[in-house]
């Protein structure tokens, strides 16, 4: 019982922390990308790529969270 709760908390920390991390990273990159795009519109593609690179962090977080939930099973 109590263990299930701890597992759930563990999973949510894994996900939330990685989501925050990628949000902070994307914020900085996104700002710069928009700035660059304002000067040269063709940079959209490159800006998009750079902005979504930290997205991987949250995917890993999600995968880890799912693995942790698997412990409960």
């Amino acid at each position, binding site marked *: *019982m109590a263990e*299930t709760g701890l597992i759930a908390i563990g999973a949510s920390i894994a996900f939330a922390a990685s989501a925050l991390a990628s949000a902070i990273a994307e914020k900085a990159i996104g700002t710069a990308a928009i700035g660059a795009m304002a000067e040269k519109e063709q940079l*959209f*593609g*490159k800006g*998009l*790529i750079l902005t*979504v*690179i930290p*997205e*991987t962090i949250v*995917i*890993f977080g*999600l*995968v880890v969270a*799912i*693995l942790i939930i*698997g412990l409960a*099973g």
Partner: protein
Amino acid sequence: MIRTEKMSHVVMIAPKTAKKDIISKLYELGVYHIDPYKKSDWQQGTKQTEQQDVDRGRPLQEGEQLASAIVKLRALLTTLDIQRDHNEQELNSIKIDNATIKKEHKISRGDFSELIKKLDQMYTKVLNLLEDKKEKREQIREAGEKIKLITIVKHLHLTKDLLRESQYLEHYIGSLEEGEACKRELAGISSRIACMITKSDEPGRDLAVVYFEKKSNKQQEIAEVLNKHGFNEIDLKQILDETGKGKPQHIDQFIHTLHNKMSTLTRQLHQTQMELNTIKREHSRFLLKFEELLEKETAKAEVPLQFGETQRSMIMSGWIPTQKMERVKHDLNAITDHKIHIQDQEDGKNAPIKFTNPAIVKPYEFFLHLYELPNYKELDPTWLMFITFPLFFGIMLGDVGYGLVTLTLFSILRLKMPQFKALLNIMIFSSLITILFGVGFGEYFGFEHVSVETGEVWCEKIGLCLPVHEVEMRGAGGGAEIERIADFPRLLNRAHGYVDVGGMRLLSVLVMAFLIGVVHLNLALFIGFINIWKNHSLAHALLEKASWMIIQLGAVLLVLGYGKIPLLGYGIYPLTGYIVLTAGIIMLYKGEGVQGLVELPAIFSNMLSYMRLGAVGLASVGLAVVVNEKLTLPYLEKGGWFVVLGIFVLVVGHVINIVLGVIGPFLHSLRLHYVEFFSKFYKGGGVLYSPFGQKQRE
């Protein structure tokens, strides 16, 4: 379609006497992509003594005239407010080509003096009319002002005598707020102030005439009171001069004359406007067509700026698709009577690229325009994106209901917004794949199953019999209970399908995504291998690209060795794995240097990154399940008004999920291509083939 169109580098030298003919022919052919002249290009390798001065070409002589005509023409289009795009459809439907307009206006080839004269006349006329319009407006405004002032005089019963400079009296005339209150306040200052208040035409303001003694020391206080009421002084002297002595009959006469003048002016203004409208109506088609014609001619007149010229000849450098080469040679020789030297060379480093994709793949070029165009030496990856982009999108969204919604939505948008046709075609195709995967995953608006009762009803009523399963439902308390449900048929259960990997219980959709990543990345390495092999050598390709594959093989062998898993019946020593892995790493170091070693872990994190194909989908399923089972169903079971609330939650929840479900998979699918896939083989940096004459015609 794997390769972009084959190009020939073409250098042509011709006498300047044939300049005009050659330019016209090139424009008509519309296949010559011009490399702008650079002085340095022509001076390399020539001996200083032999070197003849090659200079930038000069525009055709009519260029200046055409340029000034086009400026006037555009000014006319703006002042007459002729909408270009508005008329575009109409113009296209009329289908008059330049030949017709030339015939209509009887102009011979290349001679626009008649048309330009006509344009000049029209320009002068319009300018005069506009000037006239402006003047009339000013006069009307002045008359209006005068009427306003004279009305004040009339209201206040003022005469010229009353406003004369006097030795003893000072006066203020103007408008202010709350006249009566002001009058009382002034009376409070001194009894020797005369104040007269009348209503004015302006709402909320009164007219006031204030008289006081010049020698009085109250001047300051009076000014303060007047300022408090927002006093605006009005100068009436000039208007009284104009009306004669300002007697009532004079004033009425004056107002009458002014009104007459105003109506005459208004009539004239209207007439001027009508004239302008007539010009617009009658000539807008001509103007728009003429603009097109002039643009074309200016382009021709200015193109020599991109050529090189010596005293007597001109030199052009550029690209033509190899298959059109013969035709171009033939045509140019014909019009110059073989006085042109054409030197062509197949392939080159900096050739512009022209896509050769079939219509169904063409929309996906959009993604390359968004990123960077491939260079001439590379394979064109558009056709790969055509296969994998919708596939990835479908795997991530993977729901029949959502697929149908997005399909409908994008089909409607495609009708409404033809300018985004390419992107919407991609989305429509992606929606179809989504439906396909939805069937495979057995998901319908996030529902994976219905209750046994509903299943029985469906079986009786519409003959749709769903198989009944028993599943373990884990409640909030953690205890498991067995429940019977009517399950939708499926190939893979996204939310609850597990597979056993080396003793770990993993969601099968994540494992599947990882495997797709392995295949996709190795495909990318393979394309990179071919690119390098073609452009450099097999050895380079082996060291730079095959080394990555060998490293992967080494890693797999290591896992098999340590896990004691036999391969094809043979046991594997971990040492074998180490040997292969080391060999791969050495090759990589030889191929890409230290940079390659630094990037070594990236290949595995890239593969893991493909797990998003499963993870994004799981998030979308999770949200849908929460909306359906945790929010909506409890409300529906309560009955009454809760049903309305339940349906509201259901609709809002799914709308949000669909919006996220389009944005998320779109970006993630794009990102997997741009970041993980392209980084293995794509160099980019190509220039789009844009031949002289093409743009104007399309």
